[in-house]
């Protein structure tokens, strides 16, 4: 009885300890998690961690409705016709980022709903509340950097 009790207690503490350890290790990596505003200020993107990767979806649009139709904006510029009726709010535009250390996340892609293009992307946190998001093709030289600011929403 005592042995079983001690075993379960040890397991419980081990689980907490492991959790604390993982949280400690991932604290810097999870800096990316949160809600961010691109420089144009017309959308906000929530970045979450799923398994070991980071994904970002649009959670707010300054103009949520299509000015011509009056209906919620959809991904009308998507090269895949079957996706053109999908609502932009909730659309996942950042995919598959992994943490590389030194406040940099890479190996992911960013989708630009304005033109329907998907680019390779690398993210660099310049401070706790600022991200440099660089979309590029092939090599990073051929790209463009946008500065995103964190929105004060609890993770």
């Amino acid at each position, binding site marked *: 009885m005592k042995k079983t*009790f001690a075993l379960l207690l040890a397991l419980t503490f081990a*689980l907490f300890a492991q959790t604390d350890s993982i949280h400690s290790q991932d604290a810097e990596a999870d800096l990316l998690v949160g809600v961010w505003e691109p420089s144009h200020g017309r959308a*906000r993107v929530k970045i979450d961690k799923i398994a070991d990767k980071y994904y970002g979806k649009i*959670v707010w649009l300054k103009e949520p409705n299509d000015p011509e139709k009056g209906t919620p904006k959809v991904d009308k510029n998507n090269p895949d016709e079957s996706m053109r009726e999908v609502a932009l709010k909730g659309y996942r535009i950042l995919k598959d980022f992994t943490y590389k250390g030194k406040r940099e996340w890479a190996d992911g892609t960013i989708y*630009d709903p304005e033109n329907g293009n998907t*680019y390779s992307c690398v993210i660099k946190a310049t401070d706790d509340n600022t991200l440099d998001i660089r979309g590029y*093709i092939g090599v990073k030289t051929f790209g*463009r950097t*946008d500065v995103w600011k964190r929105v004060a929403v609890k993770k």
Partner: protein
Amino acid sequence: MKNYLLLACLWVFTLTVQAQVTDDDDDIDYGAVELADGSMSKTFANSRILGTSPQRFVSVGWDVQAPYDMTFSPIGSFAEGTAFNDVDQATGRATYTGGFRLNANIPVISRNTLVWQMGATYWDTRYNITNIAGNASGQSVLNALNQNGIRTGGINTTIYKPLSEYQFVLVQASVDMSGDYGLGLQSEVRTSVAAMWGKRPNDRKQWAVGLSRTYRVGAMNYIPIWLYNWTAPNRKWGIEALLPARGAVRYNIDRNSMILAGFELEGQSYRLNTLSETLAAAGLAPGSLEIRRGELRPRLEYMRQLTGYFWLGVQAGYRLNFSYDADVLPGGKEFFRGFFGDQNFAMLNSIGNAPYAQITINFVSP
């Protein structure tokens, strides 16, 4: 037994707490929340306009003109307004005019607060001129063109600086060497500069006004410039203009192809290197003999995506001669004639107009 239950509850509680860490809460009004660093949201005028033709990072092409006649005066001194028919003429027929063209514009800094690009240009124009006859010095210029062709090589830089959400400044500068030189560098370089201030009221419209120092009309000139880029709400139609250098009406056929109908003003001052040295040595025309080539090209262009970020451009139009006269620049120093100057020309030349075509392969911007 109670202990087991207690531990089981503790175990379940632990897992529940862990699970809650990753739960979503999408009921928040994310638009009502301020930025975390307490700053106000600040946006800048983007350099891009929706729907425009893709910006070319690297463009490799070939340009060719149909045959036309060339008529050159002797090298001398001719006042503005001299009747061309009163001048002793040398003539020839250009059965081939064409060559390779390379343009590159590589971003050095590309951020929402600043865009800085560096570029390079190399245009090679070769001639095949037949039936050369007439005055001796005119013939020598025709022979020099036939033998060496003319080239333009240079570097350029573009800086786009947004001042606010709606305003921006744009500065472009280039340094070129143009002439019939070979691999060796020549001392005469020509500088072109343009500076503009403008507004970008929305994602589909951008305009700017400014001043430029340019060689597009052949000789150096200072002219006001006007940038205007616009796309219709349906993104099918648009205008792309940097007047007076170029302008076009654009029709987007679909996402991957478009047609542009418009014009371009091309020009540069081309030093005829060997001939300049020969004339200077003979004491006939000490200085840099330069052809002030300027031409207007009304044209149709079809652009379509080949694959990924590679686009094909096919252009056809008519090359209208604006200027092919020549000046002798004492010591190679440039002077300003403008539209109203009365300095004499060293040669009065005329070349016929001709249809032309151009094909390019372009690596374009995202």
